[in-house]
């Protein structure tokens, strides 16, 4: 797709609409080939899952004592990815952060698809997936109910609440923009957007209720996002397993989630702005600020790694110390050090303002962060299970092709859904960009000055 017409350094509301709506025009063959490629990988993963359901979990590499491995790693990874979307859309909204307006829709969309991907993994992990509803309380003839003291039950509530609230918050933000798209579209697209816009007209009555509800939804989503990854971390911390049973898990996981999520936002946005020709709406100023969030959370995560090691040493529990010794220097020790390199060392480059606005360099750093954060979850989850209390139980783990392909399929599913969204619905919030147009103008001026 050709680059969008350059907008002036003093863009008007109309320029914003034109740039965003242009992305939603019918796509070419290359786009559909990409979508086809993504969903072919998804189909392969789905076929392998069907085989797993038919045959049983024996087709995976899960063996005692490592009964949680790649699937649960993927679950935690994708829930973590989701968090930055809510951070940007809700928390930064409450802080009235100026640079969020251009990036929040893409980040929030990422949240929805990341939670939708994450939600699949507890199901994929189940031996008898058709009994997934056993985690929910429902009337049954034997009065058999889930145990609300179990973090797995909390997880079912937290993740489903997160998906619902994120989807509602996202939908609310989309409605005025879709109404804009409705006015610009023709043919079947006009009908499609007319239905989705639900008759939105931007009257004072509508905006009055909308603004209040949006503020309150942001207020509800803010503690929710912190609670969800805390609950996910308690899936581990509530167990007495060495390597898991730690009080720092909730803040540690939340910081890691935001770290990985913002890195993923950058990973997606850098190619997207070029492919969709929206360089004028997503400027270096936006990436500079996103990179600062990555840097800050990287430092928090690094601090958590150090604290974790210190607590293990200071507490003096030999089994815990053994687990950590295995984590650092055992057969999978290389994974830990790759993780340290990716999550603690590489992001230090972002202290340099030049690297923060060098989008190629920034993209590479965020790819490292994505890899590092996946490794972090794997090291904590599967790594801690290999060396348990009883040395006689110790065993390794080797992922099967089913697990690997389902993981690849989950990435394809996420990227495919995001790609589909980016061409059919407004990937940048026109309404909010117009509200903060002063800041977009400043960012563009800075960009042009740097380029000159």
């Amino acid at each position, binding site marked *: 797709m050709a680059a969008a017409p350059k907008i002036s350094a003093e863009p*008007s*509301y*109309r320029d914003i*609409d034109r740039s965003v709506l242009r992305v939603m025009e019918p796509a070419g063959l290359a786009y559909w080939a990409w979508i086809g490629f993504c969903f072919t990988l998804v189909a392969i993963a789905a076929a392998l899952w069907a085989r797993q359901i038919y045959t049983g979990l024996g087709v995976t590499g899960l063996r005692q004592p490592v009964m949680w491995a790649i699937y649960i790693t993927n679950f935690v990874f994708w829930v973590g990815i989701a968090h930055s979307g809510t951070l940007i859309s809700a928390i930064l909204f409450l802080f009235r952060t100026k640079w969020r307006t251009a990036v929040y829709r893409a980040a929030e969309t990422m949240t929805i698809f990341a939670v939708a991907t994450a939600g699949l993994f507890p199901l994929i992990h189940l031996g008898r997936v058709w009994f997934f509803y056993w985690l929910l*309380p429902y009337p049954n003839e034997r*009065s*058999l*109910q*889930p*145990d*609300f*003291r179990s973090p797995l*039950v*909390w997880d079912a*509530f*937290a993740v489903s*609440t997160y998906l*619902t*609230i994120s989807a*509602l*918050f996202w*939908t*609310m933000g989309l*409605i*005025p923009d879709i*109404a*804009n798209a409705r*006015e*610009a579209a023709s043919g079947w697209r006009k009908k499609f957007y007319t239905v989705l816009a*639900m*008759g*939105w*007209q*931007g*009257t*004072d*009555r*509508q*905006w*009055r*209720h*909308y*603004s*209040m*509800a949006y503020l*309150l*939804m942001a207020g*509800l*989503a803010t*503690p*929710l996002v912190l*609670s969800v990854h805390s*609950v996910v971390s308690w899936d581990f911390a509530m167990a007495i397993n060495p390597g898991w049973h730690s009080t720092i898990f909730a803040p540690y996981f939340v910081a890691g989630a935001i770290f990985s999520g913002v890195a993923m936002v950058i990973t997606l946005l850098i190619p997207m702005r070029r492919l969709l020709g929206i360089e004028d709406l997503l400027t270096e100023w936006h990436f500079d600020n996103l990179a600062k969030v990555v840097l800050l959370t990287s430092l928090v995560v690094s601090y958590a790694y150090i604290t974790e090691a210190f607590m293990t040493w200071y507490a003096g529990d030999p089994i815990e110390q053994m687990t950590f010794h295995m984590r650092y220097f055992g057969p999978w020790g290389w994974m830990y050090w790759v993780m340290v390199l990716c999550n603690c060392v590489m992001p230090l480059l972002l202290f340099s303002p030049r690297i923060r606005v060098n989008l190629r360099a920034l993209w590479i750093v965020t790819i490292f962060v994505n890899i590092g954060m996946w490794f972090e979850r794997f090291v904590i989850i599967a790594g801690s299970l290999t060396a348990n209390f009883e040395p006689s139980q110790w065993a390794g783990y080797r992922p099967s092709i089913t697990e690997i392909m389902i993981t690849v399929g989950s990435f394809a599913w996420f990227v495919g859904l995001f790609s589909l969204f980016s061409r059919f619905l407004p990937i940048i919030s*026109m*309404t909010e960009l*117009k*509200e903060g147009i002063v800041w977009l103008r400043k960012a563009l001026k800075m960009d042009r000055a740097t380029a000159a």
Partner: protein
Amino acid sequence: MSTVAIISSFADDTQCANAIEQLRAAQVGDFNTFSPIPSHRIERAIGRSKSPVRWIVLAGGILGVLAGLAITIGTTYEWRLNAGGKPLLSWPPFIVICFELMVLLGGIFGFLGVMMLSGVPTTEMEPGYDGRFGEDRFGIVVRCDEAEAARIELVLKESGAEEVVREGA
């Protein structure tokens, strides 16, 4: 006497808010505004109270907490599971469920509340609605008797309206 709709458009919300103030000063109350963004200036000029959607969200949140307590306490007594000799009603973990349901129902109520109060979904467009008002123009549509139309048009023009059009309502 027949009723007419006077449709006026403004380049920004300051002018639009100014026109609203002038209309109110001229004792004109039956008007509707359209804008591409939510504007505090317009909201202040119209002078309405805060949206009642906040009470709906509060009701949803309270209902969520109560639902959380009912589910956790109710099911615990229905399925009496002795876990490690702990009291049957070991409530601290229930806070998680109550919190999640508070957010869930608060959010759902908020969404449904805003839909209900702002009259969406609807298939009927308000008189005078124009696609420009979603893009970059701020609109005021006044419904009035034909006899009063000339006076109101003058108020709108003097407040800086770019365009004033009269339509039969």
